[in-house]
């Protein structure tokens, strides 16, 4: 429960930090466009509102926790945070790293079938078993997707 509390407060602090950053970033453009329509007014209004809401949420969250009489009631404060399976985080991290790699490869050879095949193979390896089925489906579907995508893009462009 303490972890969830720290997470929640960290997220709200991050939102506050974004609000402050927007204020700092827009300080130099507050004189552009005149007092009523200054370029920085609107982002500041949005950031200010977001910051106030984050503070309000923090206060409400803490108030909720303090009023909770039992551990079960306290747990309910976290909006089902405990349902989340952190055990699968490795998949998310791996998928994100793969996507960065994919973008890097794409920069070198756009729409290369080999790139598709490679990435598809790795994506699939997270879920599909047995390996034989994985290999067959990878080659077939990546080839099909490549042809389909290049064909469609080629036609419409």
């Amino acid at each position: 429960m303490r972890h969830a509390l720290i997470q929640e407060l960290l997220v709200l602090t991050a939102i506050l930090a974004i609000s402050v950053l927007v204020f700092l970033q827009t300080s130099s453009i507050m004189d552009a466009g005149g007092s009523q329509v200054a370029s920085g007014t609107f982002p500041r209004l949005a950031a200010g509102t977001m910051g106030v809401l984050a503070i309000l949420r923090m206060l409400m969250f803490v108030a909720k926790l303090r009023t909770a009489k039992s551990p079960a009631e306290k747990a309910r404060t976290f909006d089902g945070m405990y349902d989340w399976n952190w055990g699968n985080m490795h998949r998310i991290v791996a998928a994100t790293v793969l996507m960065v790699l994919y973008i890097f490869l794409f920069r070198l050879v756009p729409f290369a079938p080999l790139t598709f095949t490679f990435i598809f193979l790795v994506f699939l390896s997270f879920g599909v078993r047995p390996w034989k089925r994985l290999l067959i489906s990878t080659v077939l579907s990546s080839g099909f997707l490549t042809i389909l995508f290049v064909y469609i893009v080629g036609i419409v462009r």
Partner: protein
Amino acid sequence: MTSHILAAFADIFQPMSFAFLFVGSALGLLVGVLPGLSSPMALAILIPITFGMEPFSAFMILIGIYVGTKTGGAFAAILIRTPGTPAAAATAMEGFPMAQRGEAGRALAISIGSSFLGGTVSWMVAVPLVGVIGLYAVRISSADLAMIGLMALAAVSSLSGRDLLKGLMSSCLGLILATVGLDELTGTPRLTLGYYQMLGGIPFLAAIVGLFAIATVLVDMSEEAVNAKPPTNRGRFNLISLMRELWSMRKQLAVGTTIGSILGVVPGVGSDTAGWLSFAYVKRQIEKGFLKSDRKIGEGVPQGLAAPEAANNAVTGGATIPMLTLGIPGDGSTAIMLGALMLFGLQPGPLFFHESPDMAYGILIALGVANLTTLLAAVLLIRPFTAVLRIDRSMLLGSVLILALAGSFASTNNTFEMMIALSFGVLGYLMHRFGFSIPAVALGLILGPVIESNFRRALMISRGDAMVFLTSPISLICIILLTLLAGKLLYDFVSKSKTQSETQNNQPTNK
């Protein structure tokens, strides 16, 4: 107006346009069938592919997808109790028990028929209303538009997320992101972080692909896969029996359609709420004895399947009204469609029907005809589409990621957009993880420029007098509604604090 409507019908029934609408509906059904793939995701992925097409043809596909997903969502809900889309959640309550007792064919037929009726009737009501509101919309001032946009944003953020405050914070984040780039009034760069690529603003398409496609896949990957398989024995059900059955539940269909049409107009409420409300109506009718049924609710009552299906499709008709007349999207899908209009160089809003009547009336009529093409596609393709449920999820998710990233590249041939899509994907995943609203950010991105430009224009016209927002009745009503929302927030906060102090006062006496 009549001549424009007739011209739109003629355009849509051209073989190619009709074929595109049919393809869109079939794709929508397919996406709807697959749990985890949603209408906004399909639209986000398809926009880059349709980008080089004629705007009218592209929109035939997009509208087909929008309407098709509403119907397709019911298939998985009935067959494997996993709604293909959130809108079909209520459908599973009665649809799945029907499938379990060997009446899957009957349940699927009722859902397809109810979807068609709900969508078509609501569209028939919406067409004249759009015409009338479209005529008056041109008189709306900048102050009104700014406040309507703000109210729509607040409504979506407060209703779409799990937490009101987090929803509002999400829309504020969307508004901040919308201000990135050159200020259109003064030409001053804002929040670009030194990247010249950001001078034109955050690429909308890449952001949407990231928020709705990549984030959804990441969320899906982090959850354990459901390995339910559809039943093989579905039972037979013919057209005449279906028509008889639908006629016998005309009252529930009418109520579902009315609920869906009304809720569709309200930004942020969405198809899922409409479905649940209609289901609650049928449940209440059975419990009170107003509706005679051999079975109890939850045991496969056909009326409990028909009403939510009619309601979640009727939302499309209601949502058309603010989308086309005011340029205010009601949910993620309509926000993406409005964004697509802007990408095609069109400006949705009060002047849309006057400046681009062919496109505006074309979209309006296509939304109705899409119900017909969806019905055709559902009848013709129901067997292969339900077989898709047997495909391994990891293969689907891999395909979506590849198409999403490649699609964001295809729109501008720039890998920077791919990085933006990936960043927004991770942002969307984290937002989902911590209970923030993704549709609210998307709506903030779409409505941000509309709200800001009209807000500043109104102030410039009034020479800085903020009273301009209180003198117009429409703007005043919006401000009152926004104040009520703020009042509710404060009331919640004060009542929580009161409970807290009461608990603390009671504690010593308890001891």
